[in-house]
C-alpha cells in the first residue's frame, strides 16, 4: 500500500482491494451475488421472527401459540427448569453455588501468572480435591442442615459443568500417565498403555456409558454400589483420557532428544525432567488440540441422556415437553445453544490468550 498517497487514491485503493476478491472473476461474482441474496432474504426474516414479532413477556402460553414470532417468554418461564432440571425448586441456590465454586476454581487454575509460584501444582491438586468434595456435598446435602437430595435429581447445567470440568481435570491427569506410559522403556507399562488407549479409542462413548451404567453394577460385588453419576463420570474420564493421551503423545514426540539429554546431564531424575522440562513444553505444543478435546468433552456430556440422566440438553428436552406450551421448542434450543456457546467460546477464547502468552519462550 502506498504510504504517502492522498486520501482519495488511498480510499479507492482500499475499495479495490475489498472488491477484487469478491467480484474478480465471473465465478466469484456469481457466488457473491447468490450469498448476498441469501443474506438479504434470510436476515430480515430472522430479525422479524426473533425480535419484531417476538413475544418477550407473557404468563399465558396461548398468547404465544397464536403468534408468528419467537416466544422468548417461554424461555423466561422455563429457564430455571432448563438450568436446574429436576433439582428441588427451593434448593436451586445449592447447585448455583456449587457451579460458582467450580467455575471459581477453574478461573483460579487458569491464571497463568500464578503458575510460576512454588508448589502451585500441589496447591491446585488440593484446591480441586476440595472443590470436588465441597460442590458434591452441597449438591447432595444431608449434612450441615442441608436437605438431602437424591443424585438422580441432579440435572441441568450444574450436571453438565460438573461432569465435564471434573471429567476433563481427572482425564488430563490420567492422560499424562498414559502418554508417558506409552513412551516407557518398560514393556509391560508400554503395552498396557497402548492396549488401553487403542481399546478405548476403538469404542464409541455411548457404549462406554452403557457399560458403566449397566454392566458395572452387575460385575461389581453386591453391596458395593457406586452411584450412577460416579459411573458416568468414570466413563467420561476413561474415554477422554485416551484421546488426550494421544494428543500429548504427539507433543512428547515433538520434544528433541537434546532436551532429555540436557535434563539428564544436569542431574534431573526421570520425574524431575518430566515435570520441569518435558511436560511444560508438551502442554504448550498441545494446547490447540487439547482444547479441541475439552470442547468435545463439554458437549458430549449431553450423551448421559441415554443412561437417563438429565444434563442441560436433557432438561431442555424436558422443558419443551410441557403440553401447555406445545409447539414451542426452537426458542428453548436457541437458549441452550447460547449457553453451550458461552462455555465453549470461553474455553476457546482462553486458549487463544494462553497460546499468545506462552509464545514468549518458544523456540
Amino acid at each position, binding site marked *: 500500500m502506498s504510504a504517502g498517497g492522498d486520501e482519495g487514491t488511498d480510499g479507492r485503493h482500499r475499495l479495490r482491494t475489498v472488491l477484487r476478491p469478491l467480484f474478480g472473476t465471473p465465478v466469484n461474482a456469481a457466488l457473491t451475488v447468490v450469498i448476498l441474496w441469501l443474506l438479504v432474504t434470510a436476515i430480515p426474516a430472522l430479525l422479524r421472527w426473533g425480535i419484531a414479532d417476538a413475544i418477550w413477556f407473557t404468563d399465558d402460553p396461548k398468547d404465544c401459540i397464536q403468534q408468528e414470532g419467537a416466544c422468548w417468554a417461554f424461555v423466561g418461564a422455563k429457564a430455571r427448569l432448563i438450568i436446574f432440571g429436576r433439582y428441588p425448586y427451593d434448593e436451586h441456590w445449592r447447585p448455583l453455588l456449587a457451579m460458582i465454586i467450580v467455575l471459581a476454581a477453574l478461573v483460579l487454575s487458569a491464571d497463568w501468572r500464578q503458575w510460576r509460584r*512454588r508448589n502451585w501444582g500441589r496447591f491446585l491438586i488440593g484446591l480441586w480435591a476440595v472443590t470436588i468434595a465441597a460442590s458434591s456435598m452441597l449438591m447432595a446435602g444431608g449434612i450441615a442442615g442441608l436437605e438431602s437430595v437424591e443424585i438422580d435429581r441432579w440435572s441441568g447445567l450444574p450436571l453438565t459443568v460438573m461432569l465435564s470440568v471434573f471429567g476433563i481435570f481427572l482425564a488430563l491427569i490420567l492422560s499424562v500417565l498414559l502418554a508417558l506410559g506409552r513412551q516407557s522403556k518398560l514393556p509391560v507399562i508400554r503395552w498396557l498403555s497402548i492396549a488401553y488407549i487403542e481399546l478405548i479409542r476403538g469404542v464409541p462413548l455411548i457404549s462406554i456409558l452403557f457399560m458403566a451404567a449397566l454392566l458395572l453394577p452387575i460385575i461389581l460385588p453386591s453391596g458395593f454400589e457406586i452411584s450412577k453419576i460416579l459411573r458416568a463420570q468414570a466413563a467420561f474420564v476413561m474415554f477422554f483420557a485416551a484421546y488426550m493421551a494421544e494428543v500429548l503423545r504427539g507433543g512428547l514426540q515433538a520434544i528433541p532428544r537434546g532436551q532429555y539429554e540436557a535434563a539428564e546431564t544436569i*542431574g534431573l531424575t526421570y520425574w524431575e525432567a518430566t515435570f520441569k522440562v518435558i511436560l511444560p513444553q508438551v502442554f504448550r505444543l498441545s494446547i490447540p488440540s487439547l482444547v479441541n478435546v475439552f470442547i468435545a468433552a463439554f458437549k458430549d456430556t449431553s450423551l448421559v441422556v441415554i443412561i437417563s440422566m438429565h444434563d442441560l440438553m436433557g432438561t431442555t428436552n424436558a422443558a419443551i415437553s410441557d403440553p401447555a406450551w406445545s409447539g414451542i421448542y426452537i426458542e428453548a434450543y436457541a437458549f441452550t445453544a447460547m449457553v453451550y456457546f458461552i462455555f465453549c467460546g470461553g474455553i476457546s477464547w482462553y486458549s487463544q490468550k494462553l497460546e499468545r502468552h506462552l509464545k514468549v*519462550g518458544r523456540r
Partner: protein
Amino acid sequence: MTRADPSSDGKAKAFIRFQGVSKRFGSFKVLKDIHLTIQSGERIIVFGPSGSGKSTLIRCVNGLEDYQDGVITVGGVPVSRALGTVPQIRRKVGMVFQHFNLFPHMTALENCMVGPVARSVTEKEARNRALEFLSRVRMTDHAAKYPNELSGGQQQRVAIARALCLQPQVMLFDEPTSALDPEMVGEVLNVMNELADTGITMICVTHEMSFARRIADRMIFMEGGKILYDEPPEVIFSRRGEGRLVEFFEHVADRGL
C-alpha cells in the same frame, strides 16, 4: 573460578580412564578398544573426521551412551548403567552440547537454577550461583531473557554457565561452536579460554585448531573409532604433513580456519 584448582591437591593423578572400551551401534563399531588416561586438570582436544567416534567417546564419559566392552572410570568410579553409578558420575561431569539444548520455557537464569535446585541447593544459593556464573560468561544483562530471545553464541554461553552451576570437576564440550554463525564463534571460545585458565579438567571435541593449539595439553586424533594420535599440540602441528593428519588438516584449511 572461585573453586580450587583441582590439580593443586597434590600431584596430578589419573581422573578419567578408558580401559579397552568398545561400543557398537548394532553391528557398527563406533569405538574400538579405546585406552585413554586423563589427569585431573588436563585439557584435552578431540578431533577427527565426522563419524570417527569423537562425540560418542565423550558421551560415554557421563553415561549418555552405554558401552559394551572394557571399563571407563571417573574419579575411580566405573561409569555403568548396570551398576547405577551414572547419577553419581554426573555430579562430577558437566556437559555442553552442539545445539545448546537450553530449556526454551525457562529464562537464562532459570536454566541455570533448575539443576542445583533439583540437587537440593536452596533457591537463594542457586540464584546467587547462577548469577555468578552468568556474569562469568558475560550474560548478566540477559539473565531474564528466554533462549529464543538470545543469539546462538549467547545461548551457548548460558549453556556453559548452566553446566558450571553444578560445580563439576570435568567439563565435556561436544562441538560447542559448530552450530554457530562464524561471527559468534569467538565469544564462545573466549569464555572457554577463560575456563581453561581456571585449571578445570576439559575434554573438548572441536575443529577450532587455533583454539586447540592455545589451550590443549594433549590433542587426540580419532578415525574409525580408534585413537590414531595422542600428542601435545606442538607435536600434532609439527606432524600435520604425515599420515591421516594430512587429509584432515587440508580439509580444515579449506574452511579457512
